[in-house]
């Protein structure tokens, strides 16, 4: 073997490999003062039919509606009624209460896994509220807010999390990988960004059939690096598909900061520019801006103006999942230092500033939602928790591999049942 160093030309600069490194690690004091937070009127809302090449700047700005004093302003202000805003606040608070409760349930050993969406509630709740109920969502794994915004029963979500007798997915899926066709919510995969081209296919089918429904899909900034993301953008651009790509840029993909997805060089919204697709970069912790961006994109898609990519600039306040420990790789007070705040508190402050809400009512609502979640949990636990025997009948393991069970699966099912009889005695019967 020759030494590669020996081949180096002596008069040339040695090449350097750049391996990205986040600015703050455990023990550091996070300082985000360099993040530019523009005023609410810095970016003007373009016409919904605007051609992508006339609005490229929007991929590099930051669409905002709520200013630092909680006042709504600027051309993106969606002008929602107080009731709608109160409903939005309540839904985000319910998501947070649900997350807290289920995180604790995992820690109590009632299930194997959970993923919180703390700090990112707006990116699923406000987006879902801006869509029609008939529009199809192809979520990633942190969009429980869509289901809750669409009034999916909490008990059903918990049954799935517990893989219990009431889990309509038969205990086959990791917790939080929901599926809810009646609520326009596609089966969550667990593999990353695979839902992106699927959403495009659904949107293409809707367009080919002359339907009026559109599709929306979500992924994190980390998985924009997947090939599926770029396949999806290509197909959406080619066929002008009525689809909305939501990139939740929460800065962290497990322990990898956004630099490992290319975030050091440009914004994630700017991915749209190369495809000739409309791209928006939005304050993801501003629920009204999130709503406004999705409403703009949805109206565009609905009027055959094609796809939009929206980057929500936000922050993952908690670990990636219950299996993660962020204190091992990032500075402890990053969320506290985050310049865009907390979406729940920002909407709360806005409603208080408008005179439609107050601290007492907020505290009372938080307590009421906590009680609602607790009551749902009690219901769900009547049907069992993971690993305590109240699972689905054994033979369901072999169902739904195919529409009809072929001989080799029937044979294997018999073998499995015989194993159970060997374990539990000849009187054992499959439940």
């Amino acid at each position, binding site marked *: 073997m020759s030494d590669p160093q020996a081949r180096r030309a002596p008069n040339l600069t040695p090449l350097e490999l750049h391996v990205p490194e986040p600015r703050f690690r455990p023990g550091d004091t996070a300082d985000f003062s360099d993040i530019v937070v523009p005023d609410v009127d810095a970016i003007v809302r373009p016409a919904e039919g605007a051609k992508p090449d006339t609005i490229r700047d929007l991929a590099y700005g930051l669409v905002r509606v709520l200013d630092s004093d909680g006042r709504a302003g600027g051309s993106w202000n969606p002008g929602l009624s107080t009731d709608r805003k109160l409903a939005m606040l309540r839904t985000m608070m319910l998501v947070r209460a649900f997350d807290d409760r289920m995180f604790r349930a995992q820690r109590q050993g009632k299930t194997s896994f959970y993923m919180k969406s703390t700090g990112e509630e707006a990116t699923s709740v406000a987006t879902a509220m801006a869509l029609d109920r008939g529009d199809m969502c192809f979520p990633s794994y942190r969009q429980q807010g869509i289901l809750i915004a669409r009034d999916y029963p909490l008990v059903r979500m918990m049954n799935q999390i517990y893989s219990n007798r009431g889990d309509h997915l038969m205990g086959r899926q990791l917790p939080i990988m929901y599926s809810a066709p009646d609520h326009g919510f596609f089966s969550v995969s667990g593999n990353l960004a*695979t839902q992106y*081209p699927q959403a495009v296919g659904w949107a293409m089918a809707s367009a080919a059939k002359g339907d009026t429904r559109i599709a929306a899909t979500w992924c994190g900034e980390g998985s924009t690096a997947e090939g599926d993301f770029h396949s999806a953008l290509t197909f959406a651009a080619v066929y002008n598909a009525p689809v909305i790509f939501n990139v939740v840029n929460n800065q962290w993909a497990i322990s990898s900061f956004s630099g490992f997805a290319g975030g050091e060089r440009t914004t994630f919204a700017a991915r749209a520019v190369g495809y000739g697709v409309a791209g928006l970069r939005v304050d993801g912790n501003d629920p009204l801006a999130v709503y406004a961006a999705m409403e703009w994109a949805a109206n565009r898609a609905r009027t055959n103006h094609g796809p939009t990519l929206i980057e929500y600039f936000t922050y993952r306040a908690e670990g990636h999942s219950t299996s993660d420990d962020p204190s091992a790789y990032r500075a402890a007070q990053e969320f506290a230092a985050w310049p865009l705040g907390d979406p729940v508190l920002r909407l709360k402050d806005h409603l208080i500033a408008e005179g439609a809400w107050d601290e007492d009512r907020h505290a009372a609502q938080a307590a009421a939602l906590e009680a609602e979640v607790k009551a749902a949990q009690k219901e769900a636990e009547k049907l069992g928790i993971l690993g305590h025997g109240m699972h689905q009948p054994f033979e369901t393991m072999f169902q739904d591999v195919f529409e009809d069970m072929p001989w080799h699966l029937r044979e294997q099912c018999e073998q499995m049942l015989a194993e159970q009889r060997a374990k539990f005695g000849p009187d054992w019967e499959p439940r």
Partner: protein
Amino acid sequence: MSTETMNMIEAINSAMDVMLERDPSVVVLGEDVGYFGGVFRATAGLQRKYGKTRVFDTPINECGIVGVAVGMGAYGLRPVPEIQFADYIYPGLDQLVSEAARLRYRSAGDFIAPLTVRSPFGGGIFGGQTHSQSPESMFTHVCGLKTVIPSTPYDAKGLLIAAIEDNDPVIFFEPKRIYNGPFSGYYDRPVEPWAKHAASAVPEGYYRIELGKAAVVRAGEAVTVLTYGTMVHVAMTVVEEQGIDAEVIDLRTLLPIDIDTIAASVEKTGRCLIIHEATRTSGFGAELAALVQERCFYQLEAPVERVTGFDTPYPHSLEWAYFPGPVRIATALAKILKD
């Protein structure tokens, strides 16, 4: 129903034509399949007849082709994507293995992926290592996928219609060496057109051949030959040349496999030769050999033999030294029948 003489391409085209006509949810997509009609002409004329929203070209992006087909299936369509060569299918593998194959299971039937992925496969056309592969065992290993491989125009049409109507994802591999005529295994002899073969008489309209059913293409007593695709014809040539009373079984569907037809035949003959063009190690022949010895061990009078491609990439200039042709098959048959 009146029949027409068709080669395999025409039969496959006719199957899609019938299904596009019968079922408005059927859509055909893939690289060059639209206006041009496909590099092998399998979709010729279909866009003109059914319009651009039902038969259309796609970007060169197999992940996207399969991924959008999964989404179209979730919407309620019945997509028939073409992957131009089986060798190009790998960028779409995650969408097939992790998505299409498991969607029904993971959603407990909330969503299904009723796609039929058509793709020309196999060698013998001087395609080199990126236009000749036989990757079928990569798909039979995936739970939730069905894998179908026809060997005649008649079967190709009936199986393709059944595959399109199937509510599970089907990998439909078309042996491109025999698109225009059955192949004897003698590459230096003129190609015989399909017209001389009985199975080129193809009904014009709708008919199905049930998936999961093998065909006994030659009844015999001396040895069972299990094969599929191009190799059915090569095997038949050798068996006839050698005057061997072999029972030749065209598997047609690899998964789910027709175990009853296989076991009944091997129990009768006591000997079994497995032939496929794909590479040997972990090939589908390994699964067949295991099934045969599990079911028929006490009826076997000789070890089960495999004739396969070698464990190398498909070579360009040495294609015919690679191909499991008449010499390799005759040698294996002689060995099995020795005692």
